[in-house]
């Protein structure tokens, strides 16, 4: 385990990414303190340039871009993480049961997951949000619904191989019941690929959330990066910072999460690196 941490933190990309993510998380957590007024409040005249009265200037309605960015971090991270956790929980359940019981159960569950995989995921998410009416909850539901099938596939594949290992058979011979075997013997050994896939899923969830907000399908009472880009888009030529700053925030955050996920993968499977 020690060598795992050494490999993980010995990777400079991972350290930089973690620094950035830590920064974003701190800002999101301290949002009410850093920007006490509502990010929707009109605080100055529109299109104030950056480095004036407000550090990043104001948008077309005179709202502070920085305050929006700070509160947007909160929205993006919260929705992405909750959606990912939901997707991981559901995907793990489906994948574990399919892999463990096999046969007809497996066939049914995998056809069920394929049903979700065959629909283009972003369009499916739009349809779901449109049906459910835009809100934070429906964003979470939509993102989780389109994200769980890959998790189910990964978990199923892991469970299939681990199930055939002799220690699982030893547990069966010892008389352990199915659920304790699945939870105590099989799943802990399937954890590493699950963590890697899950961490990459967070990045994907941030992208989906931003895209939905950009289209105006985000939670109406929550400021978000995607919404800021959507609101600033018509003024791209006159006030380029309205789009660029939240865009760079999304880029860096998603990139950081991907690099951390990759770093986790390398640290958990050191042999893949050597070869």
């Amino acid at each position: 385990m020690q060598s795992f941490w050494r490999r993980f933190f010995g990777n400079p990309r991972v350290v930089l990414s973690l620094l950035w993510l830590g920064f974003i998380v701190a800002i999101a957590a301290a949002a009410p303190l850093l920007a006490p007024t509502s990010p929707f409040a009109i605080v100055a005249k529109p299109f104030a340039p950056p480095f004036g009265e407000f550090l990043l200037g104001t948008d077309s309605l005179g709202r502070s871009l920085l305050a929006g960015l700070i509160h947007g971090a909160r929205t993006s991270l919260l929705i992405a993480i909750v959606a990912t956790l939901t997707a991981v929980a559901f995907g793990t359940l489906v994948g574990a049961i399919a892999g463990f019981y096999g046969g007809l159960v497996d066939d049914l569950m995998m056809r069920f997951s394929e049903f979700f995989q065959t629909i283009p995921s972003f369009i499916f998410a739009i349809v779901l949000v449109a049906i459910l009416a835009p809100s934070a909850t429906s964003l979470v539901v939509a993102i989780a619904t389109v994200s769980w099938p890959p998790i189910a596939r990964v978990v199923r594949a892991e469970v299939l191989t681990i199930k055939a290992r002799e220690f699982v058979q030893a547990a069966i011979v010892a008389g352990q019941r199915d659920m304790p075997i699945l939870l105590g013997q099989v799943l802990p050994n399937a954890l590493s690929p699950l963590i890697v896939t899950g961490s990459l899923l967070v990045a994907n969830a941030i992208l989906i959330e931003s895209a939905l907000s950009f289209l105006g399908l985000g939670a109406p009472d929550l400021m978000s990066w995607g919404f800021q880009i959507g609101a600033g888009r018509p003024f791209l030529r006159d006030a380029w910072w309205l789009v660029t700053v939240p865009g760079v925030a999304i880029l860096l955050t998603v990139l950081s999460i991907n690099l951390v996920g990759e770093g986790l993968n390398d640290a958990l499977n050191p042999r893949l690196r050597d070869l």
Partner: protein
Amino acid sequence: MSDAVLAIEELRVALPSWADRSYAVDGLSLTVQREQILCVVGESGSGKSVMAKAVLGLLPEPHVRVTGGRALYDGRDLLRLAPADMRAVRGGRIAMIFQEPMVALNPLMTVGRQTDEVIEVHTQLRPAARRRRVLEVFGDVRLPEPERILNSYPHELSGGQRQRVMIAMALALEPALIIADEPTTALDVTTQAQILRLLKELQGRHGTAILFITHDFGVVAEIADRVAVMRHGKLVEQGGVAEVLRRPQHDYTQALVAAVPSLVPRQAARNGSSAGHERPLLAVSGLRKTYLGRAGLAWARRRVPAVAGVSLEIRKGHALALVGESGSGKSTLARLIVGLERADRGAILLEGIDVAGLSRARLRPYRKTLQMIFQDPFASLNPRWRVGDIIAQGPIVNGTPRKTAQGEAAELLRLVGLDPKAANRYPHEFSGGQRQRIGIARALAVKPKLIIADEPVSALDVSVQQQVLELLDRLRTAFDLALLFITHDLRVAAHVCEEIAVMKDGVIVERGATAAIFAAPQHDYTKALLAAVPGRDWHR
């Protein structure tokens, strides 16, 4: 020493910094003489394979690399040869035979083409001449219908045929030296016997020298002219085969030779309890299991009868060895008996109660009577559980309070010869033999009456194998356990069990007292099996 084909002098191969020792091969000197088979024997980790790879420039550099010494072939040092010159020697003048022919052969090319390629690379022969040469060597290694084999893919051939193709490839250019790394380890005993005979015969005919790497003293007795024993990368002893096997000088060699189970069968006389009319602990009758292939429609799938009508019984405190080659159905039979698979037909009477048709849940109360020891000491322990929890798991499931079970686990660890403190450690901290001891402790934890052991020592080195077998034997007497011991190794079977059952193609072809069967086998297959045991004429 003018007739030395290969002279290795003070060879030294460094391991990467994270390995448990700094040199895989440490100052090794060996010579392989013309027309001679030199066997290099050693346990796993002795550096014998690394030595062979170093000679051929096949080391996984830069992690493992040669740091000193010479390997002289034909006056040239192989270790310092330019890559292009090395390629000309490798495959052409020095050929190699690998352990696993299925992995060593390219699955997408016919074996004829692969053999042809060897000749194409190293000679100027025209296609027609190459083809003649391929057919000639295929005939040489006794492949049936060389014309047909020529156009076969590796998966269409049996394991023995694939290894013959590998040998044919090695022989195609009449090399001066063949390096064979455990070439028969992956094969069944009867196939192994054929391949060994073939190698010996071809070596005699072509005058090739062979550097034969093996862990099996039986094989050494069968094939070697000279023997070199390796340990921890160093040469321990070398000499003529008769001297080393009969009068080993070094302590380590003596221990290794002594650890090889003898073929002298165990006597049936066990004091007292052989009452004839007692109800058997386990009685299996007419057991059948057929697997259906995954491909094709439900009614047209390939049917593989794994167990085709097996009956056997084991009495309290008795041990039965189930012997057979791979694919004979012996492991399936074990899995049926412990309830990991469900039989299609037949009865499994455990103390008079039929458990054959029971579901996993209904079977649970009977689990305590019957436990299993698994083959692979690395896969059979959950890497994320502490050893103590692994052993205590069975009793806890059966209702023993956790504290009591943990205490018993510590006691069991002592019983199998491990420190009770091991309970707080994880499986990866133990060696293969120690893990197998943990597996045995786990099986004993629920105080079973019958233990089914599926090849429990076949993944272990000889010296460790001997210790584990002794432990098993001691525990069997101490707890009056019955044992169904599944093995492919007749030596081990003779050593452990008074009774033996020989299985082939899903049926038991012969059964009886080990001594009687060894003295006078009735079935042809049993005779073939006994004749194939490597080194059967060698008695210590």
